[in-house]
């Protein structure tokens, strides 16, 4: 089926919906592979940072500083400035749309502390995170969906986008599979926004939803668009052992501590000042080091998060989610027992490169790809650099989602529909038909679990040349195997086996770009820690990786792009100490 | 049916009892209307109420009315008493207990004149129907 819109937004998480809100007078279609309120944004717990200064003095510049430093200086600083400045308005916009923030006694939006957010350029913690109980992401998603209903946005729910169409370098549409009927649809548009989220499912232990399969990144990548800084992947230190479900940083914010097999609160040894509240990359690395040195619990690959000393009252009142999750998924009672945790794959700092208006840029010259936009976790602006601060992702969604929407409004006023290229559905039909008709007898389950195990063994918190090389071979083998995947379910209607198989293909691409980028980057920075190159190397590596899909079967071409710094001594790269 | 401790049984009983009472009400209006036809017609029609089987039915009616009334109060309390929702389960049990407690003496009073008949009815179900 063919349909025509001004704007097609792929993804109904925070980024996609925030953009949709800015386009009240355009014809907008939002395509999503799950119902809008099932998007992964709903899982975010902690909060959204903005220097409102409702609780104590705060300044957007301080926020910008924390963002740049937290990202280990791989941050494009003008983008970080926009993030910190516009966060304030974006949060007010959400409030006006009805978001039920917690309130201060005088009726203002309440704010609390969060890891890495400081006052006066690193002097001490500041209350910057605006929150709605322990479900800020859920409230953002609900509020935006409600707003979208009010504005009568057209949703296409349970549509899996398969391909992005270009005509002469101008984006002009997407092709999608309607999951319910198995039909292929083409959406012709003047502009397209990708807001498809991350790819945490590439790791066995992850906080990410099943839907986080890197779809948008891979679709763009297959169409010749680079993926930026894919080696920068954040592992959150406190995921529930084996399950990966996140225990929010709030647990450590309230005073929870990490414990090893010897009964030692080991963070005190590594980071004497910030201890357990050091940034996520650092804490994750310390956990892995403990495990590697044989101090994991019972010699296994996990440690404890201990909140027992906080007492039942604090645990019940301030950490209800944690209690709930620990009881539910481990059968552990946090009031009397420590909770088994391990680092869990959490957030992609990298993604489709964009400028500050969310326009996709395809090379080191910042050449925009007309009509194509990306925002949210799928995009790399880059405001998170090598490590994202807690609560900064939601800021990213609302600030750059908003800018994307505003810029698209301008774009559609100035441009007409580019015609669709010939045979525009061919590629997608082939993709699907190949899976239907394959008799290769390869199992998607096998490939997926091999990939997830490999990524957690070799492309995790600590990386080495040897491991990365092995994973390079591994990914090539898996890519080959993937072309032989065979389905049991040959039906058309609601074929989730087909959907999973298509997504697996996307996931492999993202893993591929990640591994190539990581192998090439011979330094340690933020979340990318190389045992064989343990230091940051600004002379050679203060630059973004751009990974392009090559022409051969397993080719990946790497290019690099400078990090944009501003001329201000405060923001000059220096050693990151906490 | 939905499993688990909810208010579903109370709703089902309430609905069935309400409709049951309504059915009886129709019958009752008709039989009272018989008084308009004079004593003979009425007395004969009302004789029916004396039979054992109908006595058992009117027992059911009493039970239905009692449960429906007490549960009706429970519903009103749930609706208008702000804490009512919290105690719905307890109030359901209370309604059941009250129903039984009030029902027993009623049953005794209604059945006692015919206890012999009741015993007989179990042996010879139709004997009393024809002539009580």
């Amino acid at each position: 089926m063919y349909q025509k819109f001004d704007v097609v937004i792929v993804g109904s998480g925070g980024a996609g919906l925030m953009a949709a809100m800015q386009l009240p007078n355009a014809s907008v279609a939002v395509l999503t592979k799950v119902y809008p309120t099932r998007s992964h944004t709903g899982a975010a717990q902690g909060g959204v940072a903005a220097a409102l200064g409702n609780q104590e003095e705060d300044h957007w510049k301080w926020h910008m500083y924390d963002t740049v430093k937290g990202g280990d200086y791989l941050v494009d600083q003008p983008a970080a400035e926009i993030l910190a400045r516009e966060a304030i308005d974006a949060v007010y916009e959400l409030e006006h749309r009805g978001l039920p923030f917690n309130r201060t006694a005088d009726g203002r939006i309440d704010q609390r502390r969060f890891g890495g957010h400081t006052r006066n350029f690193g002097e001490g913690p500041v209350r910057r995170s605006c929150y709605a109980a322990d479900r800020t992401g859920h409230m953002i998603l609900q509020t935006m969906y409600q707003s979208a209903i009010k504005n009568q946005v057209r949703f296409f729910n349970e549509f899996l986008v398969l391909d992005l169409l270009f005509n002469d370098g101008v984006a002009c549409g997407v092709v999608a599979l309607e999951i319910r009927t198995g039909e292929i649809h083409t959406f012709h548009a003047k502009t397209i926004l990708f807001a498809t989220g991350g790819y945490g499912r590439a790791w066995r232990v992850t906080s990410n939803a099943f839907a986080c399969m890197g779809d948008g990144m891979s679709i763009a990548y297959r169409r010749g668009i680079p993926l930026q800084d894919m080696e920068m992947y954040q592992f959150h230190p406190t995921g529930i052992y084996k399950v990966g479900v996140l225990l929010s940083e709030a647990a450590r914010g309230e005073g929870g501590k990490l414990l090893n097999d010897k009964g030692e609160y080991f963070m005190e040894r590594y980071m004497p000042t910030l201890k357990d509240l050091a940034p996520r990359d650092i804490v994750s690395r310390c956990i892995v080091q403990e495990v590697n040195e044989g101090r994991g619990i019972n010699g296994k690959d996990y440690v404890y998060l201990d909140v027992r000393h906080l007492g039942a009252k604090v645990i019940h009142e301030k950490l209800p989610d944690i209690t709930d999750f620990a009881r539910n998924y481990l059968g552990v009672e946090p009031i009397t027992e420590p909770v088994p945790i391990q680092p869990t794959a959490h957030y992609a700092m990298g993604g489709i490169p964009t400028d500050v208006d969310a326009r996709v840029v395809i090379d080191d010259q910042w050449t925009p790809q007309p009509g194509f936009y990306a925002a949210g976790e799928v995009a790399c602006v880059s405001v998170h650099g090598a490590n994202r601060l807690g609560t900064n992702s939601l800021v990213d969604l609302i600030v750059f989602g908003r800018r994307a929407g505003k810029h698209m409004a301008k774009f559609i006023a100035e441009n007409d529909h580019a015609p669709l290229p010939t045979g525009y559905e061919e590629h997608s039909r082939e993709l699907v038909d190949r899976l239907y008709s394959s008799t290769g007898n390869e199992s998607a389950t096998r490939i997926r679990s091999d990939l997830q195990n490999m990524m957690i063994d070799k492309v995790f918190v600590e990386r080495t040349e040897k491991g990365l090389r092995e994973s390079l071979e591994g990914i090539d083998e898996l890519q080959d195997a993937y072309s032989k995947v065979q389905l049991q379910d040959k039906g058309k209607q609601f074929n989730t086996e087909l959907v999973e198989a298509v997504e697996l293909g996307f996931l492999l691409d993202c893993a591929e770009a990640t591994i190539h980028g990581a192998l090439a980057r011979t330094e340690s920075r933020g979340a990318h820690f190389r045992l064989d190159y343990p230091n940051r190397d600004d002379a050679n590596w203060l630059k973004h990786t751009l990974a392009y899909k090559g022409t051969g079967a397993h080719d990946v071409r790497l290019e690099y792009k400078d990090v944009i710094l501003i001329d201000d001594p405060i923001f000059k790269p220096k050693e990151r100490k906490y | 049916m939905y499993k688990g401790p909810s208010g579903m049984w109370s709703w089902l009983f309430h609905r069935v009892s309400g409709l049951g009472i309504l059915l009886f009400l129709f019958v009752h209006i008709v039989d009272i209307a018989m008084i308009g036809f004079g004593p003979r017609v009425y007395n004969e029609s009302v004789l029916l109420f004396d039979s054992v089987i109908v006595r058992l039915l009117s027992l059911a009616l009493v039970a239905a009315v009692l449960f429906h009334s007490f549960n009706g109060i429970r519903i009103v309390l749930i609706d208008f008493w702000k804490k009512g929702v919290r105690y719905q389960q307890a109030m359901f049990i209370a309604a059941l207990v009250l129903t039984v407690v009030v029902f027993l003496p009623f049953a005794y009073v209604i059945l006692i004149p015919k206890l012999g008949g009741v015993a007989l009815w179990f042996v010879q179900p139709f004997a009393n129907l024809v002539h009580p």
Partner: protein
Amino acid sequence: MRVQMRIKRYNPERGNKPYWEEFRVDVEPIDRLLDALNQIKWQQDGTLTYRRSCAHGVCGSDAMRINGRNRLACKVLMRDVGERVTIEPMLGYPVIKDLVVDMDQFFEKYKSVKPYLINYDNEPGTERLQSPAEREIYDEGTKCILCGACTGSCPSIWGNPNWVGPASIVNAHRFIFDSRDQGAAERMAILGKRDGVWRCRTIFNCTDACPRGIPVTDLIEQVKRAIVYGDPKDAV
């Protein structure tokens, strides 16, 4: 532990009658029911169809009828369901395939109660003020993840699919009782109609079913009182 899973299957493309199928899985007691379903799908029968996304009870994808009660498959642990478990799609929705039900009408009903902030005043430069106490009044309703478990558990909806259902009322409540909102009267007028709140006969299945622990019936009763009294203020 070894568990027998009895699953109600339905595939519109292969014959048109639902049927029961049994699977055996080996699971850990603290595995989620969703893990067991995945195990079947990935290792035994790729055609088994159900929705899932977040896997930890916050997205609302996988509401289904588990041993006769509506639950999220990712929030139920295997040790709590016993060695035989019966899984069906939720009642009250058309079934698309296996455990997947058609939620379109559910969302249409949700939309019908105007589940968004209505405020006709000009937007202030900063936030609209709201005291913590005012915020607290509508807190419960904000937890809703639109999983549909409540609506699918309600006998009123089994009988009358047009009924607006508990989930919509919970979300209407969330705005009716929000001090920043000015659309209470519009919503109350909608909910006062034939398929509005009055179809709720306080059956409480919804409260049992809600995976977020929302006191659904309580909120519905507050809305009823708001309509009867004509003012939300008197209802809580």
